[in-house]
């Protein structure tokens, strides 16, 4: 089973992980979603948020903007990060399940 987290804002992926207030948690088995949860992160400072995310037991994090610091700390916890993804959360999840999700990080 794989646990995937997607920070969400309405029906879209949050533009920034450290400012996100809700995270969609999805359990995937054999390419199918078998469980969905939502974790509320409102009113939590960014470092507590980082600690919480690191301890959610997730394998993959799909997010849009992520600070260098968050990315390093979560990678240290062996969480696979697929960053700089924008759009509707459900579409993104579907693309992930189908293996067609590509990171969109614009080049600097």
């Amino acid at each position: 089973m794989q646990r995937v987290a997607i920070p969400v804002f309405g029906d879209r992926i949050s533009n920034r992980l450290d400012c996100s207030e809700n995270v969609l948690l999805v359990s995937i088995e054999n390419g199918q979603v078998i469980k969905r949860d939502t974790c509320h992160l409102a009113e939590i400072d960014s470092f507590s948020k980082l600690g919480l995310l690191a301890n959610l037991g997730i394998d993959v994090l799909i997010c849009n903007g992520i600070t260098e610091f968050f990315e390093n700390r979560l990678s240290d916890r062996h969480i696979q990060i697929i960053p700089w993804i924008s759009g509707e959360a459900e579409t993104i999840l579907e693309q992930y399940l189908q293996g067609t999700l590509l990171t969109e990080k614009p080049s600097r």
Partner: protein
Amino acid sequence: MNSKFYESLTENHTNIILDSVADGVFTVDEDMRITYFNRAAEKITGITRDQAVGQFCFDILKANICEKSCALRCSLESESEVVNKHVNILRTDGKQIPVSISTAVLRDEEGNKVGGVETLRDLSPFEVLQKEIRCAYTLEDIISKNHRIRQIFDILPNIAESDSTVLIQGPSGSGKELFARAIHNLSPRNQHAFIAINCGALPDTLLESELFGYVKGAFTDAKKNKPGRFALAKGGTVFLDEVESLSPAMQVKLLRVLQEKEFEPLGAISAVQTDVRVIAATKNVLSEMVNDGTFRDDLFFRLNVVKLELPLLRERRDDIPILVEHFIEKFNHKMRRRIESVSGNVLQLLMQYDFPGNIRELENIIEHAFVMCRGEIIQLHHLPIEFSQRKPTNPLNQQEPMPLQAAEQHLLREVLEKHDWNKVATAKELGVHRATLYRKMKKHGL
């Protein structure tokens, strides 16, 4: 005259004007999709006009207020202006940029609302200075990719959350105070003061009055009560640097503060209760001083509740390139310069140097180079004289193959990281004995 002039302006003229201003300017339609993005906005965000136009502004700007309190949306809804709101945006390199934004509604010729406009002013140069003045450092200000520092990063929020006394052990210039400030700023005490004092800088009598204060009449010149650092830091954190320098008498007094949570100002007849967290720092190994009998064991045990050991810079050489990059960015802001990097030879030399003064010494070297360098790349002759006369044993050159030693270090690090620094698994994969692995790790400062 004026109206004729405005009528004669074409869209192209307007674009030229907007591209020539130093502030970022972008416009959105009523759906918050970007319709215009000027050159300065490209520079501040790192996103090109072509990438930005047509996208939602929150996906491009990535400001910390986009989700909760978007200023532009607020302007559009309330039809009012927002002026000079300080926020931060996230660039695609993962760096946060402080900006000041102003927003307003855009209307067509009939006065109908057609969208909004936002301007951005990069505040990075001011933030660098403000951080230095206010010492508002957080974990994110500690620059490191080194595994030992990363391990500290992992535990630091928990340490901050607790109220335990912390002992930070590390050589001069290794950033002990930066870590102490990061702990304080992360802790529940962060709304109260962080007060630092160097125990080695003051004679005993002065240190006592500095730490604990005195009451009127305590000595000849004591004309009125003076609160000490422990009183001033009420609810906050006291950082005691060079705690190894405390005299035996001061050690007893500090022990009382830690044990009984109280102290006596000089000349006072009763004790004062204290509510502070103590973070102590030392460049010595305090346990050895305890064995020598020069430091009280009971005080050592009180201080050594949580211990952080900071490595020497030469033990984290992998951090030198990013530290160099950080200091270049810092001095570019402070000195209003546009230095891009150091030359390959300079980096090679820095990577080989032992840095007895640690990170502070590296910072001083880069600052010296900023004074001497008039171009965009720091060369060998811009370094302090003792550096410029050193010759790199194998100058870096992108065309040359990687030196054998560097390749060995790279491979070691890669396999160690793959196995989460498990030495047994690493030695097995590399086909070497564990003792050989340890020897090679030591050789490469890993």
